[in-house]
């Protein structure tokens, strides 16, 4: 078992090149910054696996979950990550908010911030809302999912899980399967995976995967069966029924016929293929239970890594020189 002081020593100081106060997306991060988060997350993962499960480095800091959209696992994961670091946590959901009284969401966030918040963890159904808050708040803002735009910690935890199993992302072929158009997880994965040297395929029905995706430097295809033999990782994205203004495919049954990852399809993959799913999963739609719970699946590991990644992000944002030496930075 690792002692607390040894862990703290291993964590060290936040490196000088980390100049960020907010984490809004992976698009703007460098490979070096992503690797830094993943390296620190690996240390925190060992803390989570140890008996104590806790390392008090953010005592006196307060993290607020400001969620304008439903979430269970991301919200819980962030809250747990903050507590594992010794920070205080606060929860704010739009359902019990003053938003219904006509207050704008910026006013709402400013009011909560005035209670003394160091990091605001924001989920919102509209892309760019965390960015808007970052321009109007003095505390750190972490994007916990903004519409179909980005979900950086989800991208990081997916990548961490792959790196943990394969050592490196370089040269791996990673397929993102399903509802690419409406998926913030897909976008964050694409940015992160490409920066770390992976080859990315987006695969799904042509109403959710357009040729335009190729302009991001990824391969696109409509047939899951065609790519099965050559992928190292399959990340099965949830169908975002709640974001689709119109149904992009004729029926769930037809979707499942083309894209459900089942044992028959699994048999046609490389033997060491890794199955990821950001969850929550629609069992029987994106993936069948035997595959989700089978030996190739890393789905539960993703969840544990999610806490570790969020600990690393909170630590980097709350402990870096900008935030601490110069008081509250601009």
């Amino acid at each position, binding site marked *: 078992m690792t002692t607390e002081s040894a862990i703290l020593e291993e964590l060290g100081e936040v490196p000088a090149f980390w100049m960020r106060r907010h984490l809004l997306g992976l*698009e703007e991060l460098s490979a070096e910054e992503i690797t830094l988060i993943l390296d620190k997350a690996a240390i925190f993962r060992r803390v989570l696996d140890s008996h104590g499960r806790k390392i008090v480095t953010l005592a006196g800091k307060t993290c607020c979950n400001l969620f304008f959209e439903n979430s269970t696992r991301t919200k819980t994961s962030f809250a747990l990550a903050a507590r594992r670091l010794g920070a205080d946590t606060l929860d704010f959901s739009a359902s019990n908010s003053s938003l219904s009284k006509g207050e*704008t*969401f*910026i006013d709402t966030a400013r009011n909560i911030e005035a209670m003394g918040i160091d990091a605001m963890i924001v989920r*919102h*159904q*509209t*892309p*760019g*809302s965390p*960015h*808007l808050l970052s321009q109007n708040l003095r505390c750190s803002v972490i994007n916990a999912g*903004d*519409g*179909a*735009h*980005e979900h950086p910690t989800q991208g990081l935890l997916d990548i961490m899980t792959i790196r943990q199993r394969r050592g490196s992302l370089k040269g791996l072929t990673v397929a993102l399967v399903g509802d690419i*158009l*409406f998926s*913030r997880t897909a*976008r964050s994965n694409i940015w992160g995976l490409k920066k770390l040297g992976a080859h990315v395929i987006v695969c799904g029905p042509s109403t959710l995967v*357009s040729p*335009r*995706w190729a*302009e*991001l430097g990824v391969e696109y295809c409509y047939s899951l069966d065609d790519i099965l033999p050559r992928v190292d990782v399959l990340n099965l994205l949830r169908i975002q029924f709640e974001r689709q*203004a*119109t149904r992009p495919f004729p029926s769930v049954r037809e979707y499942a016929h083309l894209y459900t990852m089942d044992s028959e399809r699994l048999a046609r993959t490389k033997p060491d293929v890794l199955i990821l799913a950001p969850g929550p999963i629609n069992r029987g739609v994106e993936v069948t239970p035997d595959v989700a719970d089978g030996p190739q699946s890393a789905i539960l590991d993703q969840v544990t890594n999610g806490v570790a990644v969020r600990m690393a992000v909170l630590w980097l944002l709350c402990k870096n020189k900008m935030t601490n030496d110069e008081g509250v930075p601009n």
Partner: protein
Amino acid sequence: MPKLLITNGRVIDPSQNMDRVTNLLVVDGRIAAYDAQSDGSAEVIDATGWIVAPGLIDIHVHLREPGFEDAETIATGTAAAVNGGFTSVACMPNTDPPIDTQGTVELIRQTAVEKGLCNVFVVACVSQNREGKQLAEIAQLVEAGAVGFSDDGSPVHDAELMRRAFEYCKMFDKPVMNHAEVCELSQKGVMHEGLVSLVLGLAAIPAAAEDVMISRDISLAEATGGRLHVMHVSTVNGVEALRRAKLRGVRVTAEVTPHHFTLTDDCLRTFDSNYKMNPPLRGQEHVETIIAGLKDGTIDCIACDHAPHPKEKKMQELDQAPFGIVGLETSLGLVVTRLIAPGHLDWSTALAKMTINPARILKLNKGTLQIGAAADITVIDPDVRWQVDPAKLRSKSSNTPFAGWELQGRAEIVVVGGVVKLRRNALPY
């Protein structure tokens, strides 16, 4: 009424193919003479180095009154117009109540006379209550002074209603002005569909939503012999459809906004709602096509779609924030900076699109400096560079994406009906 003598200005009046340095005399609110000399009885305005143009006209303006006075009023909107060099505006009927009765038309015209700084012409609803179901009482609206018909803010969705509107408006030789958008295609989109919307994950409006509607409207105008005015055209295929229609002799005209020939969808990367407008900012290829359409005459006029909104409404999440920006006070500067200075349009062509062309579309007795015409005059410094400061806008709202931009060209003197309404050098800033 005092006489005015505007001396030594370069008079550019596309309505009479005039472009020469001369002295212009205004007597009793009318253009009285060229090459006039001072006899001491007129106020002399020295316009040396400046351009003397017919008063600018913008036929797509939201004055918000009645109903949305928190955003703009007839008084503040016309003050913004004059500050931007405009002597006439046409206001859109998406007010509350909408402009679909004689009484509302008369109210606006009366308020404009009492409180307005410039001429206000009224565009009334095509359909009752802007619901797109039944024609508004167009004959009576014409009698009250309406100059065109539009459900702007919403497209005329029902093709059969649009057909009847063309046929009916023909009796009065009034244009039907449509906001071209197929709503089933635009859904809840907030920006142009393209690579940028894909990266940002924002609900998007495809160019086809506009293309399909423009093509439909052209077909209906062609079939009925009615007169179509396409508002704020913004797409490659829309411009191409207009070009072909004009070649066939269809009675169609079109306008474009300064923001659509200036900005692209790339601006949305900031998530700033001052880049959210409808039609949305498109890609670079669309901007280039619009400029080509302005050059070859496919696009007849420039209208800014002045759409004031209070700050608290624009400071919302991108999907909650309303569409539109203020434009009256940056329109001329953008025309000079983005069209004239780079050589896309010469002064005469550009001014035609802001004076006589819009006047002809709505059959306004405006847009000319011919002897005897009402003295609506805009005197422009073509070279001055100035910075856009939202705090200095006369509009009640300041939702502009051009804050901080340096623009070239500005109205220095604005005369409406022979009365000087703006003297730039007399302003506190």
